[in-house]
């Protein structure tokens, strides 16, 4: 394992070390907002203390795992391809933007536009789990993959802000909540999660509980809603060809 005290090193220098070092496991200490950590990299195990900068793990690739012990800023896992990002604190805006595979697990809350434009293809199914609460525009333009918001400190209150799922045309959003968002667009259909739904997220919740030491029984002992695109009523600009 390679231990690096990052301090005020430039992001370019830091990524060069991570990229070129024969070592695949890194312990980054004293991180101060360095952007793009591990962008596009494969097979790197990185533990971060301090606050990483924007676009942490952008385009992250197979076999990589980033664990952040504090909060993250914006665009965490932007266009992430594979691998895992585990965040013990909160995330800023647009976590998981255009994610196409891999997992992001956030113990705390996420800001605006989390999981926006995530998409799935064949085996690649991105997963974003938010422990507490998500800001507005959660899953905007969602085209594929799974977003789960657990509302762990919300006491059954709706754990998302406004305009949840707007523009959603694929994928699934799970909300652990007793109530639904009040302003869902008509292009989104909702239902209570059935056994099959719960089964489908069991593994990921187990992993979440292992990572952050939660009792999975408490998590499952609550109501889950599933949000999906309304296939009978898609967004459709009404066009007239000339």
């Amino acid at each position, binding site marked *: 394992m390679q231990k690096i005290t990052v301090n005020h090193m430039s992001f370019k220098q830091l990524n060069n070390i991570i990229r070129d070092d024969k070592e695949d496991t890194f312990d980054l200490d004293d991180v101060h907002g360095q952007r793009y950590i591990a962008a596009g990299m494969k097979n790197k195990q990185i533990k971060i203390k301090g606050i990483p900068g924007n676009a942490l793990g952008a385009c992250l690739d197979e076999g990589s795992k980033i664990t952040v012990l504090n909060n993250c800023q914006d665009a965490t896992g*932007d266009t992430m391809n594979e691998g895992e990002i585990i965040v013990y604190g909160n995330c800023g805006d647009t976590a998981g*933007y255009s994610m196409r595979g891999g997992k992001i697990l956030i113990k705390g809350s996420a800001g605006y536009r989390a999981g926006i434009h995530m998409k799935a*293809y064949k085996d690649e199914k991105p997963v974003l789990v938010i422990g507490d609460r998500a800001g507005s525009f959660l899953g905007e333009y969602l085209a594929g993959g799974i977003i789960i918001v657990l509302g762990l400190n919300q006491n059954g209150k709706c754990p998302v802000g406004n305009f949840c799922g707007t523009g959603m045309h694929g994928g699934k959003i799970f909300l652990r909540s007793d109530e639904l968002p009040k302003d869902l667009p008509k292009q989104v259909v909702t239902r209570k999660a059935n056994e099959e739904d719960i089964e489908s997220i069991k593994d990921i919740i187990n992993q979440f509980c292992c990572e952050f030491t939660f009792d999975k029984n408490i998590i499952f002992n609550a109501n889950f809603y599933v949000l999906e695109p309304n296939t009978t009523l898609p967004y459709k600009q009404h066009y*007239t060809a000339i």
Partner: protein
Amino acid sequence: MKVNLIQSEYEVIRDQSRCINCRLCEKQCSNGVNYYDKKLKVMLSEEWKCVNCHRCVAVCPTHALKIVKSDHCFKTNANWSKHDITNIFRQAQTGGVLLSSMGTPKEYPVYWDKMLINASQVTNPSIDPLREPMETRTFLGKKKLDIEYDENHNIITDTKPQMELSLPVMFSAMSYGSISYNAHKALATAAQELGTFYNTGEGGLHEDFYVYGENTIVQVASGRFGVHPTYLDAGKAIEIKMGQGAKPGIGGHLPGRKITKEVSKTRMIPQGSDAISPAPHHDIYSIEDLRQLVYMLKETTNYKKPIIVKIAAVHNVGAIASGIARCGADIIAIDGFRGGTGAAPLRIRDNVGIPVELALAAVDKRLREEGIRNEVSLVVGGTIRSSADVVKAIALGADAVYIATSALIALGCHLCRSCHLGKCNWGIATQIKELEDRLDPEEGAKNLVNLISAWKREIKEMMGGMGINSIEALKGNRLMLRGIGLSEKELEILGIEHAGE
């Protein structure tokens, strides 16, 4: 009683004395215009379905067909054109947003046609490009102004990543999906043979085309379709698409029916699902966010690829370009509002944005005023129709041009402006297998190579006439241009003098 408010704009004229009822015109028309009347034993046409693409005319073995403009007309009115009236009929009947394709057909000024090129007489010799050296090699990317030497006093020749072109013409972005596999293949092979580049557009890169990587620009747009580290590494340069000339400020939508099995593979979304490119990149709400994306891509590809930022030509383009130049981009591509599209709302296409000539002049001037023109290369597109347009663009200040419509015409496009219908009879803007098969990628590539080689010869002729034997001496050389029939203000913006001055 059914009332037909909209009449066909064109008539299919058939010379019955020549027609041999071979029914080829019927088979070749995806719009179902031509049919055989068994009772009358003649070929007839339902001309209201005709988009005037000339496919039937071109395949008719006996030259029996022609398409003419219908003389059917409304009562003459200087304020209300036929198009104004029929579009109101259409919208009143359907409530729909008018959808169109390719560049605007409206009569906006084409400034290329209002500029004239210089030639040498007496004081300075013209050069014969056939017999004397005449150079068009072009490099795109940041230019250094300092020289550093190694211990042996050799120049350290590392530069920031650049693109090298044999001539300053590239094929601009058209996604696989908006155009066919064969069209993409023709563009890719032609780019390779010509020593220039084609652009994937926002549709990912088909696995068959990774071999053309050295001549490929991979695009990253707001939908991020098909974008992953291998894709980013596959091309020679990465283009961030912020806007398109034909539809500034709006995103894209490839309907599920066009997401065929193959398209689905390159876009990496399930077959039949809609591909939505949002209007903005949702990680870019401000110029500093663009910097974030530029460096995110640079970090992901370890600084090996120049980053192009493509914008639509809009009102404040000078300041926007200056912001882009300062955010780490290596190349700025400006797409003028007369540029083409596979589908755009009519009112946007015809009314939003500005001509590329004015945008180019403004941007080149602004970057020079700020002393940062060497920091970034400029590529312009949006109606580059001929080699003369290329020469004028370079003299105004462009490093290279992007062409798309010209390239499609070389592949057989007849500018019928019906791409959005997805039934292109020439096999270009379609995903229907039997239509696609009409475009032979090898022949298409040959036509593209012919076209660009011909332009290259003409560019050299014009350069030779000016006494310039290398393209860089033409770059921004506005003294080589004069305006014709332009106002003081237009001349001022273009930074040129009027003919006769």
